[in-house]
């Protein structure tokens, strides 16, 4: 069995998917160059008001309630991609017939997804979730399903052998609905006119015509049309093999200046993207936001800009699928890196990823929720700076500040506590005594050191607490490194106990041998 998903009035449906608030209003789609724009599609509300395809924009504007929207190929491609996602969430064998029609092979699906009426209802519901009102028809051959979907409203299930009877009432026009080329359209108009002159109004009448006579008058094409009308054709599907692209776009009539209205549009795009990803049981680990900007000269030079585009990439540590989290992360990112110019077009792409499979243990300690943690980290990063929050990673160097910050991932691999005990670091921190910690001053404090026999006896510093007579000292310990680089370093380290009044404190004091001068690097605490 085959199912056909058909979106009637596709141009309007694509526009309404991008702007769902327009659904109760009369809507018309315009095409052409100003001032010669004409209406090419209208919704039911608009046709009730007398708006019809072919009218000019100025004529349509007389109707004040009418929402006029220019034709948007971006919206149409997004809607088409959503239609394919809907079909592919049910079956791997999907034919991309036209932009508004998709055929699905349902062979073997009944045992998985239920009876045919249930599957067709589920297909219709899934299309509605993706923002498309579709007709769904199920029949024993693809063409019968296609004709039924185009001619019958809602969900239709045609039992095998009943095709001719169910298709008989459909108007003859449905046979010529998918001719898109000009030449094919002309031919189909001619045949339609011929059949109309014969008094053929529906498929039942065409199916009843004698084969030989039809062949003599219309040739092989006539016989093909009759086979279609009888629902007796048989062909195989041409399955599509396209890369999975999850992209949504909005072109704006008026540029957006503030981030708040942008958030509304981003929310809509994110919800559509997440629904599409969810329909294929996928998540995303990377979101790419591309904004087309109006005024190139005023751009913030620090941002990554390519050909009047502002690009921000949001990389997540784990695959996620929560539009609210994505929206908040994008908002925080845009607050930290504003586009710097009015926005004309929004393009959002998601890199698909398999959902993470995590098995939580009953007796494992709790860990932060990754989604919540990502938001928290973004908020903290907005407050303290991007590179000042995260996990530590030690570098393979003897440099005293040999570390870098890396992304903190709340789902670290679970290690066996026994294994960690074998670490060299854990060996140092045995149970009997704690390791003396150093508190670093960042940047190090410049100090005035009084020497006696080349040994420090007094230290003065801008920090009042860090000065006094040297009570005890150890050193110097000489360290150097990176001499082959420009960032070479060489120094003498001293461990000093300073007496400042009644208090005694221990410090690491460094003499920079290359740059000169004494510095208090940290305090032992």
């Amino acid at each position: 069995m085959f199912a056909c998903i058909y979106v009637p009035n596709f141009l309007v449906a694509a526009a309404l998917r991008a702007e769902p608030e327009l659904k109760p209003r009369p809507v018309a789609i315009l095409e052409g160059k100003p001032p010669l724009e004409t209406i090419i599609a209208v919704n039911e509300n608009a046709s009730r008001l007398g708006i019809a395809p072919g009218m000019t924009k100025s004529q349509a504007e007389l109707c004040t309630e009418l929402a006029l929207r220019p034709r948007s190929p971006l919206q149409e491609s997004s809607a088409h991609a959503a239609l394919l996602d809907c079909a592919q969430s049910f079956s791997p064998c999907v034919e991309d017939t036209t932009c508004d029609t998709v055929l699905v092979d349902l062979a073997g699906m009944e045992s998985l997804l239920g009876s045919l009426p249930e599957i067709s209802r589920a297909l219709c519901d899934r299309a509605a979730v993706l923002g498309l009102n579709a007709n769904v028809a199920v029949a024993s051959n693809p063409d019968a399903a296609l004709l039924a979907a185009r001619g019958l409203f809602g969900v239709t299930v045609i039992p095998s052998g009943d095709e001719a009877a169910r298709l008989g009432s459909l108007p003859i026009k449905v046979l010529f609905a998918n001719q898109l080329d000009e030449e094919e359209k002309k031919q189909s108009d001619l045949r339609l006119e011929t059949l109309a002159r014969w008094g053929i109004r529906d498929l039942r009448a065409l199916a009843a015509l004698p084969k030989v006579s039809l062949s003599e008058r219309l040739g092989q094409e006539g016989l093909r049309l009759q086979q279609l009308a009888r629902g007796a054709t048989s062909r195989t599907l041409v399955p599509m093999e396209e890369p999975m692209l999850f992209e949504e776009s909005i072109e704006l009539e008026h540029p957006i200046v503030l981030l708040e209205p942008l958030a509304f549009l981003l929310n809509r795009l994110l919800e559509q993207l997440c629904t599409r990803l969810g329909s294929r049981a996928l998540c995303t680990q990377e979101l790419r936001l591309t904004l087309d900007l109006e005024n190139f000269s005023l751009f913030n030079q620090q941002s990554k800009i390519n050909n009047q585009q502002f690009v921000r990439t949001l990389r997540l540590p784990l695959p996620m699928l929560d539009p609210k989290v994505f929206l908040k992360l994008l908002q925080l990112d845009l607050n930290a890196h504003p586009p710097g110019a009015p926005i004309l077009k929004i393009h959002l792409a998601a890199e698909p990823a398999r959902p993470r499979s995590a098995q939580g243990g009953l007796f494992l300690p709790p860990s932060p929720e990754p989604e919540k943690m990502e938001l928290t980290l973004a908020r903290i990063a907005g407050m303290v700076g991007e590179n000042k929050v995260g996990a530590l990673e030690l570098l393979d160097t003897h440099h005293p500040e040999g570390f870098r910050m890396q992304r903190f991932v709340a789902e670290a691999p679970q290690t066996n506590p026994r294994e960690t005990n074998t670490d060299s670091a854990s060996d140092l921190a045995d149970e009997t005594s704690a390791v003396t910690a150093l508190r670093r001053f960042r940047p190090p404090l410049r100090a005035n050191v009084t020497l006696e026999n080349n040994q420090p006896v007094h230290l003065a510093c801008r920090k009042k607490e860090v000065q006094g007579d040297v009570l005890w000292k150890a050193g110097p310990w000489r360290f150097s490194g990176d001499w082959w680089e420009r960032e070479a370093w060489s120094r003498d380290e001293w461990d000093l106990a300073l007496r400042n009044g009644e208090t005694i404190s221990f410090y690491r004091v460094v003499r920079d041998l290359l740059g000169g001068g004494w510095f208090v690097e940290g305090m032992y605490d």
Partner: protein
Amino acid sequence: MSSAVVSTSAALGRPFAFDGEISAIKKQSKITPASVIPASRLEIRPAPEMVPSGIPAIDALTGGLPRGCLTEICGPASSGRTTMLLAALAAATRRGEFCALIDASDALDPQSAFAAGIELDRLLWVRCGEETQPGCPISRTSFAREVGKASQSAFDFDRTRWKENVIGEKASRHSEHRLEQVLRATDLLLESGGFGLIVLDLSDLPPQAARRVPLTTWFRYRRTIEHTPTILLAIEQHPIAGSCSSLLLKLDLLKNELLKNEALHATQIFRPTHAQLFTGLDISAELISRLDRKPARSVAFATKTAWAG
């Protein structure tokens, strides 16, 4: 209380003189017997679970760190506060918990953290304070550049007094800014949940700045972590959380050995400096307050440097 009175009078078969008064009060205040819970039936707050702090001497003194509670560790410079902080973080990460360190003065030494045995993947480090390059190596050029600004403006003993005042004001504003970052980051992390240990390192903040944290903030923090397995640990110079902290420890450096050394130094019987090694600190810990109100006790322990062997 009321139910006990009624039942007693009924058993004796004669009404007490104040039974009528109680019923009158009940009528006036519209208190029903069901809404009055006798004190004997009030739920006893369960004792918090105590987990090891990473230092056996401290565990012997306090029983460990209480979960779902605020613990304060205070003390002057070189009193072992950071050592205890790192030991607690190491113990928590070894248990498989995720930890967060909100560092008010960006003072964590990564090498010390590693030497203490912290699993660095499980530690979230929030570095509050001014914007600086992360992990920027101190080199011949950058070292001078980093300290240059500070030295030009501050390190000049011949400057006039007004200049010092300006610097003091700047430092105060900077402290307030850092404190604000610390409090906001703590709020966010506590809301996020899932951490076994959250440490607020306020050690380098001036006491007058740290005392500006409203008591309501500490109450909020305590309320947030209540009934959660999170331990909130604050490291500071003086206690600031008042009654919100369930455990208050005061650390100090034992100076006897040092003063003995000074005496030796005075008598010229002292080893050369390169023959000496800084091997650790001798710390005394005093238990100031605890939930169970046991009398104050103290304990001494020694820390050792990573190179002491």
